[in-house]
């Protein structure tokens, strides 16, 4: 890994605390570093600065210098350099750190400014917190409590605006709650590159709306809901479903593609209610695609596999594992691993393949990248399979090699780890010709044809790691308990390895990682527990010659991965 370039540091003084920050850091971010909260609505670290909410007003001053001699002017009372305070408050978001910048956020003027802005924001706000989805994570609530006056002087009629506009298939807008911060407009214009939102009318009657004849329907529309500081933009899916303070947050990874957007899974009592992005400045900033947010619905999908089956009849796990072992004894086993499996599962799949001396195949899923957060490679973890040694070359979408071997009678048993072999190009006749051991979560043609079916867990029900397109190892954790009848993939794989004669391997993830670290050189220094929330970048040199499918996406350039390695 290259060390990031050393930024030029400047020392600023915030509420009497000195701190060195990179030049150009704005006051809100600098204050955060010294533990001072500068309230704001329109400012967002990943969006253009417009300075329209006026909540982040602070007092600003610069050290006094004599205009003629340029010598510092010393205040005789304190013996320190005098500070020239600007009489008007300045916005923190638009004020960048400069040498000697002084900021005060705890003066009567700043307090008065905040109280004033809070009051103005609330006079035309419906104050319908009891039925508002944003309640509990609403900046307006938080800052009204923290910086507001606590009473209202407004006795006039409030403005009336549209209450439930469908901006698009996934986003519902309540204009009365809108504080006109324009974050959603800037996001749509600058990040999603789909400039469909804007204000109509003016003054206090300004109303957020979609361009006539257009809809907010790009695949990133729900990010506007995340960044909306109030309850104006709500997710049509999540709306009125659950109070956010009841929800448990679990860090996870988006499995849609090899970008590996960092996410948070929000669940309560074993049910997932929503998925939101988690900030990772090296991967997905604060965004994620809409398609990744509904993946939790797979947990309760109708076609979940919920019982172990041998030849179509319900059975028990150990009996089924033994039945699989019987099949293994005949030899001529082939293994189809998955780019959707975690690193740990791929490691155990490789163990199984080595034990059985079976060739391992992988199925690739290449689509078109959207240049933002969905890459061309729709498998989240092909690089994991490379790192663990499950495969040595990039996979193809069709299992033509395996099909030929089946036709030639060289393969008698196929172990598929979650891959639908029919979808990967095997005909019904080929499926019928071999004995199939299927580990997976959903019923499909392969599970129907399988001799042994071993139900496993979705990504939300287990922990593990993925290696994304940057060769970044990222961790996901168990958000909800596994479905009844399904078993953790690691347990199933460990049992299969043992049954195949590979000896005992741990199935508990932390213990397993000791084995992984010992056997996989690239992961040699890591433990599962110590993986940072934002992931660890691996040395990608061994694989730099492979023609990966990914094009450019946010924070990823195809050639850049190689460059990163050169400098390490």
């Amino acid at each position: 890994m290259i060390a990031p370039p050393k930024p030029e540091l400047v020392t600023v003084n915030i509420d009497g605390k000195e701190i060195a920050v990179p030049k150009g850091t704005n006051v809100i971010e600098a204050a955060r570093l010294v533990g001072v909260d500068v309230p704001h609505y329109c400012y967002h670290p990943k969006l253009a600065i417009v300075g329209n909410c006026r909540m982040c007003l602070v007092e600003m001053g610069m050290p006094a210098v004599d205009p003629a001699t340029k010598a510092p002017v010393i205040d005789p009372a304190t013996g320190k350099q005098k500070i020239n305070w600007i009489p008007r408050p300045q916005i923190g978001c638009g004020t960048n750190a400069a040498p000697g910048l002084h900021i005060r956020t705890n003066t009567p003027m700043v307090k008065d400014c905040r109280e004033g802005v809070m009051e103005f924001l609330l006079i035309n706000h419906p104050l319908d917190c009891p039925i508002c989805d944003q309640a509990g994570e609403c900046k307006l609530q938080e800052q009204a409590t923290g910086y507001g006056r606590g009473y209202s002087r407004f006795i006039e009629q409030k403005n009336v605006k549209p209450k439930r506009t469908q901006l698009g298939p996934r986003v519902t807008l309540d204009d009365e709650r809108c504080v006109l911060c324009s974050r959603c407009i800037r996001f749509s214009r600058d990040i999603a590159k789909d400039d469909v939102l804007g204000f109509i009318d003016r003054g206090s009657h300004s109303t957020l709306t979609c361009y006539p004849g257009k809809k907010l329907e790009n695949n990133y529309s729900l990010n506007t809901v995340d960044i909306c500081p109030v309850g104006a933009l709500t997710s049509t899916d999540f709306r009125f479903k659950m109070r956010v303070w009841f929800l448990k947050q679990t860090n996870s990874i988006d499995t849609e593609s090899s970008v590996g957007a960092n996410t948070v899974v929000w669940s309560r009592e074993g049910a997932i209610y929503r998925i939101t992005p988690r900030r990772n400045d090296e991967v997905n900033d604060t965004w994620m695609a809409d398609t990744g947010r509904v993946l939790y619905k797979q947990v309760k999908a109708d076609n979940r596999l919920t019982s172990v089956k041998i030849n179509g009849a319900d059975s028990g796990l150990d009996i089924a594992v033994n039945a699989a072992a019987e099949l293994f004894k005949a030899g001529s086993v082939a293994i189809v691993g998955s780019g959707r499996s975690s690193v740990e599962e791929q490691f155990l799949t490789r163990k199984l393949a080595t034990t059985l001396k079976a060739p391992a195949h992988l199925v690739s899923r290449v689509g078109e990248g959207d240049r933002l957060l969905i890459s061309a490679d729709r498998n989240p973890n092909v690089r994991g399979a490379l790192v663990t040694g499950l495969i040595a070359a990039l996979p193809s979408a069709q299992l033509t090699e395996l099909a030929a071997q089946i036709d030639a009678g060289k393969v008698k048993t196929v172990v598929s780890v979650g891959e639908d072999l029919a979808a990967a190009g095997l005909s019904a006749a080929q499926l019928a010709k071999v004995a199939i051991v299927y580990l997976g979560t959903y019923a499909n043609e392969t599970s129907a044809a399988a001799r042994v079916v071993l139900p496993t867990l979705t990504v939300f029900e287990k922990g593990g790691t993925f290696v994304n397109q940057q060769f970044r190892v990222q961790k996901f954790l168990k958000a909800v308990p596994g479905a009844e009848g399904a078993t953790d993939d690691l347990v199933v794989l460990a049992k299969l390895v043992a049954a195949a004669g590979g000896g005992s391997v741990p199935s508990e993830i932390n213990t397993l990682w000791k084995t992984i670290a010992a056997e996989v050189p690239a992961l040699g220094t890591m433990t599962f527990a110590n993986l940072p929330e934002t992931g660890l970048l691996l040395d990608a040199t061994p694989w730099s010659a492979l023609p990966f499918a990914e094009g450019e996406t946010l924070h990823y350039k195809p050639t850049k991965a190689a460059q990163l390695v050169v400098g390490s």
Partner: protein
Amino acid sequence: MPAPAQRRIIFQHIDEPGYTNDLACYQRHGGYEVLKKAVTRKPEELIDEVKKSGLRGRGGAGFPCGVKWGLVDRKSGKPIYLIVNADESEPGTFKDRYIMHQDPHQLIEGTMISCFANNVKQAYIYIRGEMPHGARILEKAIAEARAANFVGPNILGTGYSCEIFIHRGAGAYICGEETGLIESLEGKRANPRIKPPYFPAVLGLYQCPTIVNNVETLCHVKYIVEHGGEAYTKIGTPGNTGTRIFCVSGHVQRPGYYEFEAGKITMGQLLNEVCGGPLPGRTFKAVIPGGSSAKVMRFGERYKGKRKLGADLVDYDWGVEDVPMDFDCLAMVGTMGGSGGVIVMDDTVNMVEALANINAFYSHESCGQCTPCREGALWMKKITTRMVHGLARNEDAALLKSVADQIPGRTICAFGEACSWPTQSFIAKFGDEFKGYPEAKKAAKPANANELV
């Protein structure tokens, strides 16, 4: 002391019988002779003349024009734009419209001289949307000037080329704020930009250095280049050079526009002698000296303090009638010269109703971008409207003041000041009327009162 005579520099030919707005007439009166001479001089010389003249912008803020030109980033390599701010929208102000309607070539000549001085290749005249007639006149005038090679490629054979385009505004007061104007000119909503970083002189139109000058200011530039900056400083008073056009409206005998040397005439002379005093049987009550956003002055109040006169500090003790009409003196007494729109109110006016009128205007014109102005302006309007409709409360004056105090200095642009100063000053100076309004509302109106629209 009798009022001095008018000194018409800009309005020299306005309303002159037989004077038409075509090129031939303009040239018969010496038109474009200044441009012809100017293009033979060095641009730096012209800028120096303007700097020497001490010319202050006539749009309202009174910012020195030469300083504004000096701030332009000339090293960026980007083109420099000049925008003529003809979005004259301040209630009470109607000077630029007359220049454009009756003497458009004066503006075009001033613009071309300023363009030449600043090496501008493209100028825009951003004219208020509600002035379609003015836009047509300017279009015609520019076509004439282009045909005569005063505008366009290779002007007067010098190799210097400059185009002028007319852009009609979309009907909003805020389009007159220079960064809002630039946004509007770029085809967006006229939301003013934050400064820093978007100072027009550095990051203006299309992120290029841009000069935005008022119509009247550019006409003064023509005069300055003709007569020299030195000569211009002899007109008016030090620090307030040149002439000022006062647009007097309201309750006087002879409302209209009058051009005087800045600071040489007092408010009393202007209203009583030039404008003929109050209407029969009435007395003056209040005057807003610089467009409706300026703070109101109450007749009968005294302004005391010290001011600089030459090198000395002298005491002054003025009534409203004694205040000299220039930027500095009006600022000293707590209001502003602004755009020169003098709005006069006599004793038939109820100040609560007058403020309700002003607040209705400003709440309608707030762009809605930043919170204090957007919400504050409408809230003040709602309060004053409620008062006028008979639901006034005794505490409304204090509430109005408190709301108004939460706006100025905290907004993106100067609209925050514009919308809150009337309320602040009305309450400060006519607080008694606001307190007594619930009772006054019940009493019958004076028979001779003018209806406020």
